[in-house]
């Protein structure tokens, strides 16, 4: 198809602007009573190799993007977001105590956790359900995943610092610790 004729151009435009697939009858209604069928065939052929295709579904015709290019129409975009304080604490408790139930997590945190918190950790691929505990109510337990180890650069959970390490690093209750520290210094003076 070189330069398209007026009828071809008209059919093209009508199909393009249509909000739904059109029958030949409906196309004709826009154009006066022209012989549309051969035009549709020629257009199909013209578009066959392009990024747009003219396709026939039953008695109706419409344009759509070429099937092999459908993957271009969606695109993934990554949006980095920082894990909330509740999320971080919950993840830490699971990592240190796994497998652990939700009730246990709450008891350790001393605060309830929302369902969303576990969902986020699950979505991040850091925790997984790890079977049920055989106690009344058979609550679900949670454990960390390989993805968790990968993300935090740990070879295994044993690489996590223990309580004593945390204390030595000053990570246990920093506020009270500071006071204790001051007292120790006092005592040292007297000794």
């Amino acid at each position: 198809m070189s330069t398209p004729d007026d009828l071809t151009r008209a059919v093209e435009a009508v199909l393009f602007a249509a909000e739904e697939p059109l029958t030949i009858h409906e196309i004709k209604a826009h154009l006066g009573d022209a012989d549309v069928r051969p035009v549709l065939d020629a257009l199909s052929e013209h578009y066959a190799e392009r990024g747009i295709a003219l396709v026939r579904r039953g008695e109706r015709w419409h344009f759509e993007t070429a099937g092999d290019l459908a993957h271009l129409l969606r695109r993934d975009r990554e949006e980095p977001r920082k894990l909330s304080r509740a999320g971080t604490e919950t993840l830490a408790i699971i990592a240190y105590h796994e497998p652990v139930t939700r009730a246990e997590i709450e008891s350790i945190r001393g605060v309830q956790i929302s369902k969303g918190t576990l969902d986020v950790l699950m979505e991040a691929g850091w925790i997984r359900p790890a079977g049920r505990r055989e106690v009344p109510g058979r609550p679900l337990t949670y454990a960390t995943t390989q993805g968790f180890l990968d993300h935090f650069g740990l070879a295994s959970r044993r690489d996590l610092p223990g309580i004593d390490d945390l204390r030595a690093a000053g990570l246990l209750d920093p506020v009270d610790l500071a006071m204790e520290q001051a007292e120790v210094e006092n005592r040292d003076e007297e000794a």
Partner: protein
Amino acid sequence: MTDARGEDERLTIDIDGWEGPLDLLLALARNQKVDLREISILDLVEQYLDYVGHAQSLKLELAADYLVMAAWLAYLKSALLLPRDPEVEPSPEELAMRLQLRLERLNAMRDAGARLMARDRLGRDVFTRGAPEGLRTIRQTVWQAEIYDLIAAYGRVSARTRPVLHVVAQRPVMTLETAIARVEAMVGERIDWSTIESFLPADASPGFRKSALASSFLAALELARQGKVQLKQKSPFAPLYLRGPA
């Protein structure tokens, strides 16, 4: 003249259609059927004043800005007709030119608006695709946390909920018993009055010294009660002296 009168009648009927005095002036100017750059400002002024006068004679209410324009045009007309006063700036010719420029400007925008509206307009003359598949952006949240955040969080949780052990720190204290024994032993060796401070350990830290002072004072009172020590003080807060029994 009859023509002009007829024009006036039409304008009177259209009174609500004018978008201000400039619009009316432009309509009158266009009636001169010449290029705006060649209109006769004097004729235009005449027609405007005529129109306003006619409207008033019909007791039509004209908005104030039409009357203000009429007054200004009347001034312009007289300035254009009367002998030139070189003191007056800007000159009437310049004012006339400026009025003509304003009319041209408004006319140009009116034409531009019409040409704009006559273009092939989207949704009226040209159309986008009726049923586009649409482009989708799938947003994926990538959660971020550092190992430090994790460990610190665990520390925070542990500290918050771990049973707290209260250890009372050892304080440097001299007990009353120690003080009584010390003061009793030391006072026997003193011949003359000695201040209570001289009974305290020489190398005590400030904290311990305070405790020793308090305990030694109580010890002195106790020993005095037992008749083992004499006390002397000249006035309240004056130095307190101790001596063995007489």
